[in-house]
């Protein structure tokens, strides 16, 4: 068995935007030129703009609910940039930054929050599974998918376009679920090509991480015999580096990795939540000073790599995204009522068929006024 290794928290960029040397992880980011770093930066800015817009739409009554990713853009965008096209992603329910990097139209996320469907996108298109709202249920799916990848022989072939890794995103709260421990067990005993990416955003609704664990979460992975690493989750560069290493390990047949990204949920749990009831403003302010977007901007600006033209273009892209989000949401209408009978089964089911027929008759009788 590989010796589980726990290193100090990996950080490549300080909150002030200063690059710190790290001989283990520097090679992982050496190829990222200023243009690539600017894309990383842009993706975080766009994710945040999406977040702001969706939150506003919820406030205006256009969405029933929204789960902001505010503050977690570094962990999400940084890790997602390390993914290969053939890799498969299992998100929880606030990984908007990951979805954006994978190329999804983020308005697809809002269909569920507007209440027009339960899914919103074709998982195969960008190799991103649907959101899972039952906390902790999906890491097992990621492991099973990875076991399938193993059986298909899509690991350790040496072909970078073929070797495939799977990544599961979940939160600190989710680590308490039995299903998550089972996922770690199955991944470890099968040496499945999967990466567990835990965003420890310090809160599971009103319960602080100390309500879920007595030890740093990174040690959970160690206990299962899984190489584990803690990373500064507000450092997009470090998140990229540790995820790249973990994905490579998976693709090369080295089995699973457990990553704890230490970050912070800057906003409410959801738009229905009132964090003022359980945490104080000083804590939020302390984390604001470690903002992932600010730190990459400082780094690029200090290096003279943030030309005004780029910033202006980015502003325009963000504005365009905001308009797109607003327009798309406003135009989202509920599907026909009868669609609730669609896809309940993949093959005909007499009860569903009978109820659909009854429903159709009832609704048309409603329309022609022959029933109330």
């Amino acid at each position, binding site marked *: 068995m590989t010796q589980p290794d726990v290193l100090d928290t990996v950080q490549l960029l300080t909150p002030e935007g200063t690059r710190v040397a790290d001989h283990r992880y520097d090679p992982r980011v050496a190829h990222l030129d200023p243009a690539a770093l600017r894309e990383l930066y842009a993706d975080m800015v766009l994710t945040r703009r999406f977040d702001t817009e969706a939150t506003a739409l919820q406030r205006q009554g256009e969405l*029933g*609910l929204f789960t902001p990713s505010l503050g977690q853009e570094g962990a999400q965008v940084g890790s997602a940039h390390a993914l290969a096209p053939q890799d498969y992603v299992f998100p929880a329910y606030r990984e908007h930054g990951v979805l954006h990097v994978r190329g999804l139209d983020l308005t697809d996320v809002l269909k*569920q*929050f*507007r*209440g*027009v*469907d*339960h899914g919103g996108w074709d998982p195969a298109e960008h190799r991103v599974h649907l959101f899972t*709202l*039952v*906390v*902790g249920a999906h890491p097992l799916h990621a492991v099973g998918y990875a076991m399938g990848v193993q059986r298909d022989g899509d690991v350790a072939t040496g072909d970078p376009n073929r070797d495939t890794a799977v990544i599961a995103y979940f939160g600190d*709260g*989710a680590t*308490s*679920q*039995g*299903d998550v421990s089972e996922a770690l067990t199955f991944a470890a005993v099968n040496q499945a090509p999967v990466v567990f990416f835990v965003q420890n955003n310090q809160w*599971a*609704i*009103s*319960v602080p991480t100390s*309500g*879920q664990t007595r030890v740093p979460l990174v040690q959970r992975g160690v206990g299962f015999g899984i190489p584990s690493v803690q990373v500064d989750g507000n450092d997009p560069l470090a998140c990229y580096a540790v995820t790249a290493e973990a994905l490579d390990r998976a693709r090369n047949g080295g089995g699973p990795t457990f990553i704890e990204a230490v970050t912070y949920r800057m906003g409410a749990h959801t738009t*229905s*939540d009132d964090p003022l*009831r*359980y945490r104080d403003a000083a804590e939020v302010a302390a984390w604001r000073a470690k903002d992932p977007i600010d730190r990459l901007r400082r780094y690029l600006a200090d290096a003279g790599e943030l030309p005004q033209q780029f910033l202006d273009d980015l502003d325009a892209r963000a504005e365009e995204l905001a308009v797109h989000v607003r327009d798309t949401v406003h135009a989202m209408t*509920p*599907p026909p*009522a009868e*669609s*609730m*009978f669609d896809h*309940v089964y993949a093959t005909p*089911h007499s*009860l*569903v068929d009978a*109820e659909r027929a009854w*429903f159709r008759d*009832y*609704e048309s009788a*409603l329309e022609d006024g022959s*029933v*109330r």
Partner: protein
Amino acid sequence: MTTMADRTDATTTVPTEKLTLARALTLGMRTALRHDPSVLLMGEDIGRLGGVFRVTDGLQAEFGPDRVVDTPLAESGIVGTAIGLAMRGYRPVCEIQFDGFVFPAFDQITTMLAKLHARSLGRITVPVVIRIPYGGGIGAVEHHSESPEVLFAHTAGLRVVSPATPADAYTMIQEAIASPDPVIFLEPKGRYWDKAEVALTPYGTPGAGLDKARVVRPGADLTVVAYGPTVHTALRAAEVAAEEGTSLEVIDLRTISPLDHDTVVESVRGTGRCVVVHEAAVSHGVGAEVAARVTEECFFELEAPVLRVGGYHTPYPPSRLEHHYLPSVDRLLDAVDRAMAV
């Protein structure tokens, strides 16, 4: 084992207060916590936050974090440890945050909690209450609007109850806590904000019991059997029907396991017609159980087949379609019309 009746205090005047159903639950639990040191509450976000519906608001401040426990995020853990606490003499009241999140605990509830009393030949009692906000109509996302009652009612060893009014919420939660049996306590979340006058009886005052249905509106022509969120629907339908000259008798089942067939049968013997309404899917549901018993026991009095109104055999739909799925006043009256036309 002490029962509620053993602990009845001599009362003089009982204060009443206008309360929401949610607040009535809070005060019911507060009363139990004050009078029985073995009672404790456990669940996700129930302490500092007071629960996502604020049903435990203020209770951790009054009783401390050992009696109002913010648990780790693990429903199987909540129910499993509640079983152990109960074996040690405590009366845990578990909050499951939403109906759709009880399933990680389903194993503990159905294989362990429900059976320990029988398996131990009655030596072990497990007085655990599992509170579950259930039902739809609140515009929520997936897993937040479901009605899983039959999954529990089908399991011997569990009592399954659901209050429909603030007054019942206040007394039934206390009766559930005092019960030596495990109780699945289903709270109609869509009615949490309904307000009514509640008599704040002292702890131990005998209530209507956890195994009795109630006729909440007498009528002559047809019996509507409802529970939880649909009691309100049935009462509104009865008003409309009355204006049209049809007199509906409305029964609030209050308890799903056991089902108080006597009250239902007595009513249907009088009216000769019966419609059952619930949010849960009609197929294999409570309505089927009621219909079967009514058919057995009122065969010669029945003027029409027993009809059922409820959800479809589909996943609970996205919120913008839920009004098509939920039994509305109109859909209930349509069934009433069909039964009356026979």
